[in-house]
């Protein structure tokens, strides 16, 4: 065993807690919900053991947790919270409020099915349903990525002044144990400057927030938020590179896997990406010219990059572990919108695969690729798996 190793066997959730310990938030309002709870439990254990300082607030609901997170952030300090599923939905009102207040809160969300009926399974509909709230959204495929992306989210959110949500899926990632390389305190201190915003709730400054505004002021404020979102694309790429320079691990805001010479590209978000990588390897071995595009940064959606990557590709197959009744897979819709009007745009097959946490194996994905190759796509999502 290497004695200088910073590598621990951790669940995806505990990999996040370690990142939070290193980031040292001042205020952490928390509320339990399966399968997020281990994140908050390890944070409170670190706190009780004196490995973290700051204020832990054991709230009575996710709504209040987000309400407290917003004002703490506006008072000028670093804030973290975590939730999942119904908890995220209970926060919905406050998610809009946080983004409108330009509060750079970082929140971890563990994707879990939404009731009713009740379930505890991986499904991305909870966070994708928050796509219009003004939060930056990152989707991660394993604990290592969740650890590193949590660090990145603070760097990006605090530069841009928009809140950021980092996301992984229930159980497949949240409770799976993997070896995770934990960043050192020196690395994180070098990576994250102190958060000290000039505008804050402070009697010495006297500024207020949230008063009623005119129509024009409201419109201008939303336009400013949109401009800030646009800047995220570059800032997030840079933040990823800067972390890579320090810890040797980087992800980009999206990832192309074996796309050289590909005529067919599978598109995924989250834990299904690893499965799709295996399927791509097997298909390439069979001589099928297939590649993989993983979308990591979903908000803002990297439209220009996606258009460039997929231009000239014959077919794209989108795998959606989420479902919007009436329109289908959400990544499928986003991708279609992004590619509209593109010369040489690919045909797009939208597959609902793994909704409700059903298992999708490399064999399933290979079968889907083989059938898609021989079919014309329809104009809506198709149930698979």
């Amino acid at each position: 065993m290497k004695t200088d190793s910073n590598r621990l066997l951790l669940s995806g959730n505990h990999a996040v807690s370690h990142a939070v310990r290193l980031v040292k938030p001042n205020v952490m309002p928390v509320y339990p919900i399966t399968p997020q709870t281990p994140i908050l439990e390890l944070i409170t254990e670190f706190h009780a053991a004196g490995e973290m300082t700051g204020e832990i607030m054991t709230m009575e609901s996710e709504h209040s947790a987000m309400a407290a997170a917003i004002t703490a952030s506006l008072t000028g300090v670093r804030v973290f919270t975590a939730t999942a599923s119904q908890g995220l939905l209970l926060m919905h009102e406050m998610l809009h409020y946080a983004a409108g207040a330009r509060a750079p809160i970082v929140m971890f969300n563990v994707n879990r099915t939404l009731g009713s009926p009740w379930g505890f399974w991986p499904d991305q509909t909870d966070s994708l349903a928050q796509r219009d709230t003004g939060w930056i959204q990152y989707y991660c495929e394993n604990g290592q990525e969740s650890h590193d992306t949590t660090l990145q989210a603070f760097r990006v959110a605090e530069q841009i002044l928009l809140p950021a949500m980092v996301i992984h899926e229930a159980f497949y990632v949240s409770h799976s144990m993997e070896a995770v390389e934990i960043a050192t305190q020196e690395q994180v201190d070098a990576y994250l400057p102190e958060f000290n915003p000039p505008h804050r709730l402070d009697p010495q400054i006297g500024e207020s927030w949230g008063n009623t505004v005119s129509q024009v002021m409201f419109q201008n404020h939303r336009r400013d938020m949109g401009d800030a979102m646009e800047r995220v694309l570059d800032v997030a790429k840079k933040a990823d590179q800067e972390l890579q320079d320090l810890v040797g691990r980087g992800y980009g805001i999206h990832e192309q896997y074996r796309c050289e010479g590909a005529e067919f590209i599978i598109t995924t978000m989250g834990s299904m990406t690893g499965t799709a990588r295996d399927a791509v390897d097997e298909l390439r071995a069979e001589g099928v010219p297939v590649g993989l595009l993983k979308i990591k940064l979903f908000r803002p959606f990297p439209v220009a990059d996606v258009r460039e990557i997929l231009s000239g590709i014959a077919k794209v197959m989108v795998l959606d572990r989420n479902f919007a009744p009436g329109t289908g897979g959400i990544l499928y819709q986003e991708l279609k919108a992004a590619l509209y009007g593109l010369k040489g745009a690919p045909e797009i097959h939208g597959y609902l695969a793994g909704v409700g946490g059903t298992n999708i194996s490399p064999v399933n994905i290979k079968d889907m690729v083989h059938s898609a190759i021989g079919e014309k796509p329809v104009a809506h999502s198709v149930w698979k798996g």
Partner: protein
Amino acid sequence: MGYEIQEEKVFNSGHAACPGCSEALALRFILNTLGKDAIAVVPPSCIAIISGPQPLSSMSIPVYQTTLEASAASAAGIKRALISKGNNHTNVVAIAGDGGTYDIGFQALSAAAERNEDIIYVCLDNEGYMNTGTQKSSATPSMAFTTSTPAGKLSPKKNVPEIMVAHNIPYMATATTGYPDDLVRKVKKAMEIKGGLRFINVLTPCLAGWGVPDSAGPKTSRLAVQSGIYPLYEVENGETYTLNYGPNGLSVADYVATQKRYRHLSPEDVELLQAEVNHDWEKLQKKFK
């Protein structure tokens, strides 16, 4: 009746309250007593309108306008952030209406009391959703007309002061704008008692909602106390009760006669209300030692 208040100018003229508004009066006494080392949290309410549209403000302290159900949680978030920065002196005050306190904001308030958050929470209680045009809240008293209870409310007012006492918070007080010296003293006392949630319920008669003349706010407030409907008292640590002003012989009939929200009442209705008030007062009296 005269009174003298040493006040620091925090609440300013030029605000958007109705002429004679009890809430504006309450805000003057409360904010000017709190002084400038304070941050206020205000949910949607008349208070939010009075505090002013961007970029104007009638309050020369930072005011954060939150959502209707979140005042206590929002105030607690500010206080914890200040504590994390080593600031233990700035007062954080939530000022909410009865809808934002008795109804939709109660869960967050109860939780903040349970966590013993170091904030002052003031409820400006005008017994209904007045900013949306006089609808019933759980602070609306028995039989009162509102636009959502046009035949009169069928259930009594929720007793939030006693529910807050049951949280064993360091300080709970009832106050009203007709007794400004008492209100100011209670705000000062709340400021002195640190280290927990301090709750003050301030009865603020709504001129339009209750149907009284513009000049009748303080008088109506005093009638509520003198008829035993709204005794002024304070409780420390959930057990030490002190009566400040109680009934002085006036009846419920004297109180309701001046308010249009009660004009549909029959003499029998008024008797029933009197019995309710007598019962509540007898119950409360036992707690004063």
